[in-house]
């Protein structure tokens, strides 16, 4: 049954919005419709953080608060959730929130334009981590750019915001209607009451937005509308609208599909639903494969990871997507569904060419199956980019190495950024397999890499240096296994 309204909580009140444009962003809604001007647009692509808001959802009977980029979130995706903006933190006439007080005390704002976004990222940190390390603070703020301060006073604010609470650490300082309770349990109850029994269906000016609740409904909808845009976290599709100004006729949102949001670990594999966010799936993967820790820490930023999904990264299939190389070398496979038919396909067979994959019309990604780690294998991934945090890889590598004595028993290597798709380095793998694991073999493998890939030049790196970089990354992996170097420059800096 099509409806054109959505409901969500803002400042303790349920807001019902009628006649929703399916691809109107949360930021546009805040600034243009509600005239709440505190949240800013800095880039409209989720890369600067000026638009950061916090979205609360009920997760196992508790409130989970996550910072997201409102500039690329479509408004219907917050149906049933609570939206917290900078205005929510200190109602007019009330004292400043401890986060805000700390920012003032520490001189954390200069021009002030990025500040509301920082305040919201700090608020999310404040609510989720009682004593963050410098690393935690850096990670939490990785999606917020400040051009004025150089960050030192903002870090100081993050460290001092807890003492600004003056013992009043349980207060939320959130704007509420007069007399309303703001106990978390009440907020949970309020959000629970917004839960829909049927999927959301919106029609607006001939365009449609569907948010089915179960996989069968999704399969039926997609079979009927095989030209629809599948929307997961929106961190890429959002840009089709804000940057490319595309009109999306039909959007099917997977964020509410229960089966696609499931995450489980068995004795043989991790099964991650296609709509599970990076924030949720990363710790599970890294727990299994610690060598992927730095890759995933450097994957986008918290507000992006809070929205972006593993399935979206894979299905979108960018040649510079960061998760695929690692998943390929550990032998991940994809569960695909079309109508009622389901099939499983190895990830390294999924990509055919630039933006061409194995999905048939109406077929969608259900889950990713990641084998549990082999104790004999070394798995490692490297990201090579201009900046440590929230940068797109110029080159991304992943290795899975198993040695028999000093002989290479199995070697898998995959790379992003070097070809129209992320792909295995077949010749390099062949050059090393069965060879002694030494510098001479690595040099042979480096020559093979040049036959595996013919990279292009673009704004991220030149072709010749991309090739040199991937060869050096392989050499570096060798040195790591030999104990010649035990840290990257990034963790080196942090150990001091």
């Amino acid at each position: 049954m099509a409806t054109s309204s959505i409901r969500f909580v803002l400042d303790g009140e349920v807001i019902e919005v009628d006649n929703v444009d399916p691809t109107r962003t949360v930021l546009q809604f805040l600034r243009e419709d509600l005239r709440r001007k505190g949240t800013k647009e800095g880039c409209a692509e989720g890369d600067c953080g000026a638009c950061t808001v916090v979205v609360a959802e009920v997760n196992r009977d508790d409130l989970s608060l996550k910072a997201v980029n409102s500039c690329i979130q479509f408004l219907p995706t917050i149906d049933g959730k609570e939206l917290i903006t900078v205005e929510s933190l200190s109602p007019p006439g009330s004292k400043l929130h401890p986060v805000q007080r700390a920012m003032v005390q520490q001189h954390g704002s200069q021009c002030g334009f990025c500040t509301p976004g920082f305040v919201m990222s700090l608020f999310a940190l404040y609510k989720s981590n009682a004593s963050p390390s410098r690393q935690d603070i850096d990670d939490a703020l990785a999606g917020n750019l400040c051009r004025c301060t150089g960050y030192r006073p903002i870090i100081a604010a993050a460290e001092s915001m807890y003492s600004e609470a003056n013992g009043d650490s349980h207060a939320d300082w959130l704007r509420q209607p007069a007399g309303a309770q703001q106990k978390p349990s009440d907020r949970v109850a309020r959000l629970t009451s917004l839960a829909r029994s049927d999927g959301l269906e919106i029609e607006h000016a001939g365009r449609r937005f569907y948010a089915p609740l179960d996989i069968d409904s999704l399969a039926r909808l997609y079979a009927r509308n095989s030209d629809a845009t599948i929307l997961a976290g929106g961190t890429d599709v959002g840009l089709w609208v804000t940057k490319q100004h595309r009109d999306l006729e039909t959007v099917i949102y997977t964020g509410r599909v229960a089966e696609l949001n499931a995450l489980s670990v068995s004795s043989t594999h991790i099964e991650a639903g296609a709509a599970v966010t990076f924030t949720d799936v990363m710790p599970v993967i890294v727990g299994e494969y610690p060598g992927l820790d730095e890759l995933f820490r450097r994957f986008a930023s918290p507000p992006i990871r809070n929205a972006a999904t593993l399935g979206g990264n894979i299905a979108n299939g960018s040649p510079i997507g960061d998760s695929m190389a690692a998943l390929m070398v550990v032998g991940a496979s994809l569960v695909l569904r079309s109508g009622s038919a389901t099939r499983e396909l190895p990830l390294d067979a999924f990509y055919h060419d630039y933006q061409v994959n194995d999905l048939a019309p109406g077929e969608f990604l259900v889950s990713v199956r990641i084998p549990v780690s082999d104790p004999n294998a070394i798995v490692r991934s490297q990201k090579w980019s201009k900046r440590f945090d929230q940068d797109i890889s110029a080159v991304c590598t992943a290795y899975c190495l198993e040695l028999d004595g000093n002989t290479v028993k199995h070697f898998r290597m995959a790379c992003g950024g070097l070809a129209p798709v992320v792909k295995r380095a077949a010749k390099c793998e062949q050059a090393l397999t069965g060879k002694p694991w030494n510098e001479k073999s690595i040099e042979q493998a480096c020559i093979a890499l040049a036959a595996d890939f013919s990279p292009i030049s673009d704004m991220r790196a030149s072709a010749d240096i991309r090739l040199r970089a991937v060869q050096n990354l392989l050499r570096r992996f060798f040195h790591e296994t030999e104990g010649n170097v035990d840290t990257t420059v990034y963790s080196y800096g942090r150990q001091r």
Partner: protein
Amino acid sequence: MDVNVSSKLKHNRAVGEALPHDSAHLHVTGRATYTDDLPEPRGLLHLAVGMSQKPHANIRAMDLTEVLATPGVVDICVAADIAGDNNYGPIVADDPVFADELVQYVGQPVFAVAATSADSARKAARKGAIDYEELEAILDPLTAVAKGSFVLPSETLVRGDPDKALENSPYRVQRQVSLGGQDQFYLEGHIAMAIPQEDGGLLIYSSTQHPDEVQSMAAHATGRAAKDIVVICRRMGGAFGGKESQAALIAIIASIMADKTSRPCKLRLDRDDDMIMTGKRHDFVIDYDAGFDDTGRILGIDFEFAARCGMSADLSGPVNDRAMFHCDNAYYLSNVRIVSHRCKTNTVSNTAFRGFGGPQGMFAIEYVIEDIARTLGKDPLEIRRRNFYGKDARNVTPYRQTVDDNIIDEIFDKLVVDSDYENRRTEIRKFNAASKVLRRGISMTPVKFGISFTNTFLNQAGALINVYKDGTVQLNHGGTEMGQGLYVKVAQVVADEFQIGIDRIRIMAADTSRVPNASATAASSGSDMNGKAAQKAAATIRARLTEFAARHFSVSEAEVNFHGGRVSAADHSLSFVELVQMAWADRVSLSATGYYKTPKINYDRSTFSGRPFFYFAYGAAVTEVVVDRLTGENRILRADILHDCGDSLNPAVDLGQIEGGYVQGVGWLTTEELWWNEAGELGTHSPSTYKIPTCSDLAPDFRVELMQSGNPENTIYRSKAVGEPPLMLCLSAFHAIRDAIAENDRSLPDLHAPATPEAILRAISGAADE
């Protein structure tokens, strides 16, 4: 009436206190109003700009039918719709608002579209069908030099006999090095809203460092007189020079469309459009030939700079002049030739950016110093000290200004000790000898930056202060607030002049109807000039109040004292408010203007000689880095800074300028890379591809100290300008990276800026190939 002296006013003095930014409480709550946050007038139209897709072409024909047919579109305008001059070039009239027949860069405005929503306008702006006749495009400075393509004539500054000195030098070093540009990346993009007023008037809200220029340029373009336009800017979400001259373009487009439609019009550039359409820091190709003796003293030097100015002159003249004035940095150059080419390229017109050419000039000489040290196998610190300006001799710059306030030796002496430079350098060399992949490096560099606009006439400022009957004050001056803390500093000055709490003062927006003819808030001169102007305005009112009190209480004026919110006149004591009320009742004017022009400066551009700068600001930094020799990735481990602020007006604000400037400079020389493709299109036009520093890039060990040693010149409370100088402290980071990748103390890696992982790998592999 009671007078509550602000609790913030300690020691009865606001100046020198680390007060928070005046808008801090508004920033953190989202209640600070930026131009896009202003209430929108009824009938407001939103604009977008149709841009050239070719770097150099004649427009054969243009079909905007599809643009007009887009739902929500109300009107379009093109060059022919401009009633006045189709130009916003501030110095040379070579900057068309809309390209007419010729386009000269990808991103040049060709038309604008007005619609009922920003979405509609932006959608429509992409639909312009332009038929181009492509012309040969010049896309880099060296090609421009080869083809004689310049926006302004090349300039040469010579002192002594550099050719002979070079010839007679026992050692020579020559190099060509490229130095990238930098996008300002203010978080708030360009924006202006133009609202038609009665009788042909126009009100413009503009995010601009230079409301006066927006006023005069909009007047020229719309065929008005200046009196018919008011420009207001309360604050900008960052500017860094990017909103000095080019804000006028945005405001003019909004004004032209407002005239054409008789409706309020707002143009807010999307981030990508902003980065494609508006100018950046000039990238340079630097050639040098330096001769020196075995102690490392420079005997002769020959510099040749080729700067990418883009398609028009904009501010490139003074930017390149300042590069010429700063390629001495803190060093005495006895025999020197500086040739400066202002290259015309078919790329966006480059403009002001914090440092304004100074960083490029300093980059050149610091590279020379490092090369001398490496040629001789000495610590660069020794070479720097060997070449520093003297106090009494060797103290005249190539442009013949005597450096009479030199404190660079004192700064170096203190920072060498505080940073433990020498022990760390020794330890780093031990570490590197044992480390295969990771290498560390350290460098210490000075800054000496000239303060004043090099165009002498720009060094003037005005203020208007109104005292109201309740003893509160509105403070107006010509300066603009872009986050640098100018407004709180000037308010501190005025609070002290009246001896009242700063909370009694409301800081007003920059408004061309309150203070006319103001220079840009630029050249680090904001608090120097506006502070003095506001102080004079306040002093005028205070003098009137003093005269009144003396008359009223029959005491001498010398017996009238303002102190801690009160005024005493011999035995009489009353509050400031009471005095103000009595003075008003006695018909004493409580409003006054103040005007200031920087003294002592005079400069003859035709000979590049004189005293362009009132004084110099100094500083030094020691940066230590770690670099991965295999990947070129790098990270700052520690930075120590000692920076000269004179007697700081507000140490918290100044600290913020130093820290922020350093980090911004490090971005310029490391991660921030502007990349154009062969079609002249900028590939790095958003934060996904253009990487400014993030939180984790900040040195984990960051130690910054203010050198508060006053100012020999009579500046406002003997403070020093601090907006631009600290940016150049970043040169230490670049040379720390070069130190880290050098095989030994005698190797000369060919490292170009920015030192991206790619540039570092090239420098390392270049050395390996030799």
